[in-house]
C-alpha cells in the first residue's frame, strides 16, 4: 500500500488537509484505483482527523464514489426518459454483450462496469454516456462499438478521440441574457459606480464597510436597490425574490459571508446551466462577484454537478484569467477593500444536493442531507455563516441588472415574473436546445418554435414540476401560471405517458437521500406499485395507494424531493388515466367472495340492519 499512499498525500496536501474538502479528496482519491479500498478510507480519515465511519458514510452517499471494486472503466448510460426514447437501453445492451458483462456488475477482470445513471443533462443530444465521469453525447451503435473497442484495448480515457466528447450548445433562441455580449468586469464596474437612486436610501454602507469596503462607497446599497427594484426571482424553480435574499444575508450577523452558485443542475430534462457555464461563464462569475460586493462576502463557491466534470478545467481557466485581470482577488476593479475569490466544488452524483441546504452540507464535506429549517442559509449557511445561494441563471440576470438597472429589467416579462427564462427543450421536437423567452410565453409558442408536432403532453420543470396535456398549451411560462426551473420535455401522441411516470418514479427512489421515513420508504413503495402496474397485475386498489402515498409524502417529507416525488404519477393519472387503466387487471376490483353478504344471516339472527352491522367500504 506504500505506493497509493504517496499519491493520497499529494491530494490531501493540495486541499490543505481540510475536512470540508472531503468530497473533493474522495473524488480524486478514487481516480487512483477506480474505487475507494477500505485502507484508503482508513488512511484519509486518519490524516483528516475524522472518524473512519464518517468518511465511509460520506463516500457511501454519492453515486459516483465506489466502496467496492467497480472497474477501471465505469460506463454509465444517462437514463432520463428522453434517453429512453432515444434508445439508450438498446445501446446499453449492445455494449454489455460487446464486452461480455452484465449490467450493474463489474467484470471479473476488474476492467469495466456498465450501468445506468440519472439524467446527465444532455437531453438535447442524447442518448448520453459518462465514462469515468466524462460525458459522451449522441450515442449511436457505431459510437458504442468504438467505446467497447477502446475499453478492450485498455486505452486511457484521456487518449480517446476528442470528437467523442464534443458537446454542442444548441442555443436556438437568444434574448436579453444569451444575446448580450458583456465585457468582463463591465457589470462589476457598473455596480461600484452606482450612486443612490432614491433620496431616502441609506447613504452609508454599514455592512460592506465591516467587510473592508469604505463606508462612503454607495455602490453596494445602490446595487441592492436595483436588484430589489428589478423584481428578479430565483431561477432554480422556487422563485424567492433575489433582492430580499441578498438583503437578508447582508443584514445577518456573522463573521464571514458566502456566495454560493448552485450549478448542481440535476433535474431531469434541464441543461441550460451547462450552456451558461460552457459559453457564458464570465457572466456567471460576474453575477457572483456583484453579489459578493452587495452582501460583503470574501469567498464564493461554484457547486458544479459531477456530470459536468468536462466543464471544470475550462471554468478554472476563466477564474484564472479573471484573477489576472483584477476581477477576482484583492482590490477588485481597483476598489480598496473589495476582496473576493471563487472556488469550484465538484459534486459526485446526488440530485438532492440541488436543494440549497443539502448543497451546503456537501460543500462542507458531508453527506448531502437537507438541513432542518429554520434557520435558513441566509443566516446560517456554509459553516453556519450567512450565505446566499442562487441558481446559475439568477447570477447571470443579476449581472445584467447591475449593468442596466432594475427598471429596465422589470419592464420585460409579466407583472409578477420579471425578465426572461431560459428553457431546456428536449423530447419529441425537431430542434431541441436552449430557448430564452420573456416570461409569459405560451407553451404552444415554444412547441411551435422547437418544431414539435402532434404533441400529447409537456413535462414542465422536470419530474418535480407539472405535466400538462394538449388542452393546456395556452398556459404561460411564469411564476403565476407554470413556474419552471427550465426543463421542457415534449411527448408526442406515440408516447405512453405511463412509461414517463414510471421512469420518474424510479428516478426519485434512486435519488431520495433516505433521511426521512416517508420519502425513503415511500418512493420505493411507489416504484413497487408502478412496477406492478407495468406488469399488468394492478387493480384500482393500487391507484388508490398512489393517492394515499402522495398525501403522506406531501404532508410529512423533510424536503422538496419528497414533496414532489408523486407529482408525475399524480399528474399523469389525472390527465392520462387510460394509460394506467390499460394496465389494470380489472378496473374495479371485485372479490369473488361477498363478505357483507355472508353476514346477512347474522343480521337476521340479531335483528339488526343498521350501518354498524354492515362491513364498511375500505378508505
Amino acid at each position: 500500500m506504500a505506493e497509493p499512499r504517496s499519491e493520497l498525500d499529494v491530494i490531501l496536501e493540495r486541499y490543505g488537509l481540510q475536512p470540508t474538502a472531503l468530497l473533493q479528496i474522495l473524488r480524486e482519491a478514487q481516480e487512483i484505483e477506480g474505487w475507494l479500498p477500505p485502507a484508503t478510507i482508513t488512511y484519509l480519515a486518519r490524516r483528516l482527523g475524522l472518524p473512519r465511519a464518517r468518511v465511509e458514510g460520506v463516500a457511501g452517499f454519492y453515486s459516483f464514489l465506489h466502496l467496492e471494486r467497480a472497474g477501471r472503466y465505469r460506463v454509465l448510460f444517462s437514463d432520463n426518459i428522453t434517453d429512453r426514447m432515444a434508445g439508450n437501453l438498446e445501446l446499453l445492451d449492445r455494449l454489455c454483450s460487446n464486452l461480455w458483462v452484465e449490467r450493474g456488475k463489474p467484470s471479473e477482470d476488474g476492467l469495466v462496469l456498465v450501468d445506468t445513471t440519472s439524467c446527465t443533462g444532455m437531453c438535447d443530444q442524447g442518448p448520453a454516456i459518462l465514462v469515468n465521469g466524462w460525458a459522451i453525447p449522441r450515442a449511436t451503435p457505431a459510437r458504442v462499438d468504438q467505446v467497447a473497442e477502446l475499453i478492450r484495448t485498455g486505452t486511457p480515457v484521456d487518449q480517446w478521440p476528442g470528437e467523442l466528447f464534443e458537446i454542442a450548445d444548441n442555443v436556438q433562441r437568444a434574448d436579453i441574457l444569451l444575446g448580450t455580449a458583456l465585457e468582463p468586469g463591465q457589470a462589476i464596474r457598473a455596480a461600484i459606480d452606482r450612486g443612490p437612486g432614491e433620496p431616502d436610501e441609506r447613504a452609508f454602507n454599514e455592512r460592506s464597510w465591516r467587510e473592508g469596503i469604505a463606508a462612503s462607497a454607495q455602490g453596494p446599497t445602490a446595487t441592492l436597490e436595483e436588484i430589489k427594484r428589478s423584481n428578479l426571482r430565483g431561477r432554480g424553480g422556487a422563485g424567492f425574490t433575489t433582492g430580499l435574499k441578498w438583503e437578508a444575508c447582508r443584514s445577518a450577523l456573522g463573521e464571514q459571508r458566502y456566495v454560493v452558485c448552485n450549478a448542481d443542475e440535476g433535474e431531469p430534462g434541464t441543461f441550460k446551466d451547462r450552456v451558461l457555464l460552457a459559453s457564458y461563464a464570465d457572466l456567471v462569475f460576474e453575477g457572483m462577484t456583484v453579489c459578493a460586493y452587495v452582501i460583503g462576502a470574501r469567498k464564493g463557491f461554484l457547486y458544479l454537478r459531477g456530470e459536468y466534470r468536462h466543464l471544470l478545467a475550462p471554468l478554472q481557466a476563466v477564474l484564472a484569467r479573471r484573477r489576472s485581470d483584477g476581477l477576482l482577488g484583492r482590490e477588485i476593479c481597483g476598489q480598496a477593500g473589495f476582496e473576493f475569490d471563487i472556488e469550484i466544488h465538484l459534486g459526485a452524483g446526488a440530485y438532492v444536493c440541488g436543494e440549497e441546504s443539502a448543497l451546503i452540507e456537501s460543500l462542507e464535506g458531508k453527506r448531502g442531507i437537507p438541513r432542518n429549517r429554520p434557520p435558513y442559509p441566509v443566516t446560517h449557511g456554509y459553516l453556519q455563516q450567512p450565505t446566499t445561494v442562487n441558481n446559475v441563471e439568477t447570477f447571470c440576470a443579476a449581472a445584467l441588472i447591475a449593468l442596466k438597472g432594475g427598471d429596465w429589467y422589470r419592464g420585460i416579462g409579466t407583472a409578477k415574473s420579471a425578465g426572461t427564462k431560459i428553457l431546456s427543450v428536449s423530447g419529441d421536437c425537431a430542434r431541441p436546445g436552449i430557448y430564452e423567452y420573456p416570461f409569459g410565453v405560451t407553451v404552444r409558442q415554444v412547441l411551435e418554435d422547437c418544431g414539435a408536432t402532434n404533441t400529447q403532453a409537456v413535462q414542465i420543470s422536470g419530474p418535480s414540476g407539472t405535466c400538462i396535456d394538449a388542452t393546456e398549451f395556452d398556459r404561460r411560462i411564469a411564476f403565476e401560471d407554470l413556474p419552471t426551473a427550465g426543463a421542457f420535455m415534449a411527448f408526442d401522441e406515440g408516447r405512453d405517458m405511463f412509461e414517463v411516470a414510471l421512469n420518474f418514479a424510479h428516478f426519485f427512489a434512486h435519488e431520495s437521500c433516505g433521511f426521512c421515513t416517508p420519502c425513503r420508504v415511500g418512493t420505493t413503495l411507489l416504484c413497487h406499485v408502478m412496477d406492478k402496474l407495468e406488469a399488468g397485475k394492478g387493480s384500482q386498489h393500487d391507484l388508490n395507494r398512489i393517492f394515499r402515498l402522495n398525501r403522506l409524502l406531501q404532508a410529512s417529507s423533510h424536503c422538496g424531493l419528497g414533496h414532489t416525488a408523486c407529482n408525475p404519477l399524480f399528474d399523469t393519472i389525472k390527465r392520462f388515466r387510460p394509460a394506467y387503466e390499460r394496465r389494470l387487471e380489472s378496473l374495479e376490483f371485485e372479490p369473488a367472495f361477498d363478505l357483507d353478504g355472508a353476514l346477512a344471516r347474522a343480521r337476521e339472527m340479531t335483528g339488526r340492519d343498521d350501518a354498524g352491522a354492515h362491513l364498511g367500504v375500505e378508505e
Partner: protein
Amino acid sequence: MNVDPKRPTFLLDGEEVPFEAGQTVMQAALAAGHYIPHLCYHPEFKPHGSCKVCTVQVNGRTAASCTMPVQAGMEVQSNTEDLNKKRQTLVQMLFVEGNHFCPSCEKSGNCLLQAVAYDLGVMSAELDYLFPNRPVDASHPEILLEFNRCILCELCVRASAEVDHKNVFALSGRGITKHLIVNAESGRLADTDIAVTDKAMEVCPVGVILQKHVGFRVPIGERRFDRSPVSAQALEDAPRRPAAKREGSA
C-alpha cells in the same frame, strides 16, 4: 394545568400550553404533560426530525414537532384522525422496510416501535414488505448488532459521538439502501472501541444494539410497555429535560 399569565403559551389541540423560549413544539408539549407520538426524538439529544412520526399541523401547515421552534400563539394540531392515520402509515413503513418479527425479538415489550404501533392501533403492515438482506454482526463478545430491526433514528450515532466521544456508529448509503455502519476497516463491531457501558448501548429504541447474555432477564409480560401503553409513559421521560450543557439543546 395552571397557566402562569406571564409565561408565553401556544395552542395544542385547542388547549393553552405554556413554553420556554428555545423549546420546540415537542419539548414544550412533553414538559407540559402532553404526549405527541415519536420515535427518533429523545429528550437527552438534539432533535433531528427524521422519523416524521411526530408530524403535526402548525398554523395549517405540517411540520415535525420535534424540530419546530415553538412561538407564542402558535396553533398546533396533533391528535387528529388524519395525522394519526399518517403516523400509522409511517410506522407501517418502518415495519416493512426492515425485518421485524416481534414474537421472537428479545426487545419485545421494551421496543418503542412496537409500543408506538400498538398505541396508534396499527394492526398489520398493509404495505409491501421489502425483505432487505441485512446480516447480523455477532463479532463482539458482549454485544450483538441485529441490523434487521434498524429504523435509522441515528440515536446511537448521536450518543456515541456526543456522549461517548467514540463515533462507533455512522450512516452510509443513500435512500432505501441507507444503513448503519461501524467505525472499523473490517466493518466488524469487535474491531471498534465500543463498551457495554457506553451511552450508545442504551438509546436504541428497537432491538438492534443488544447486550449478550442478559436478553430475557425480565420476562415478556413484565416489560416496560407490557405494563401500560407508551402514551401513558412517555411523560416519565420528559423530566429528563435536555441536559442544558449539551450542544444545541438550548
